[in-house]
């Protein structure tokens, strides 16, 4: 039973527009969330994180929003660039890192 869900397997966005990747989790005890980015034939790399004491964290073009009451978080990429095309994994870190299934983002030039 998945504890971290990413219901959109794929997403296509035009270059320069906003990419919004969504993630839902099941356990209200989860208090720390991460996003990873993965290119083909490579391992995931850490992108950005957020603690449950915050509702927003920003790092350059990447912003993560957390809605604890809805058990939902989202990653916004603005503006999207072709190099952002990758699989994005939402994850939570409790006693171990628990990943979602990933969303494949394609940024079209």
């Amino acid at each position, binding site marked *: 039973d*998945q504890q971290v869900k990413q219901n959109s397997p794929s997403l296509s966005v035009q270059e320069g527009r906003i990419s919004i990747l969504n993630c839902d989790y099941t356990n209200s005890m989860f208090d720390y969330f*991460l996003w990873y980015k993965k290119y083909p*034939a490579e*391992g995931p790399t*850490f992108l950005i994180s957020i603690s449950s004491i915050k509702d927003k964290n920003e790092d350059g073009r990447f912003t993560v929003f957390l809605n604890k009451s809805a058990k939902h978080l989202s990653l916004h990429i603005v503006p999207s660039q072709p190099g952002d095309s990758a699989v994005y994994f939402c994850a939570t870190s409790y*006693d171990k*890192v628990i*990943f979602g299934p*990933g969303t494949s983002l394609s940024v079209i030039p």
Partner: protein
Amino acid sequence: EAGVTQFPSHSVIEKGQTVTLRCDPISGHDNLYWYRRVMGKEIKFLLHFVKESKQDESGMPNNRFLAERTGGTYSTLKVQPAELEDSGVYFCASSQERDRGETQYFGPGTRLLVL
């Protein structure tokens, strides 16, 4: 600085055979993790070493899987005998400190196909 390396990059074996995957962490990283991604699904935690000790092996699927980290450097993950459902990508990650995931550096993975 060299990153996390994994060998082999690909392995194709028949059901019932044995396969051993190797992970070389970043030098000086005491924490080493194994993960697996099956059929494009979520990446699942398998186990965590601190130096040569197994800190958490709660994600190991069954006793056909054996992980070792002798001497606290590289690690091996042996699957014996392999079953069809073991197919997937096996990732290794390492970190200097035990963290909440931000400083885990992942290797490129070993793609295992069991026929």
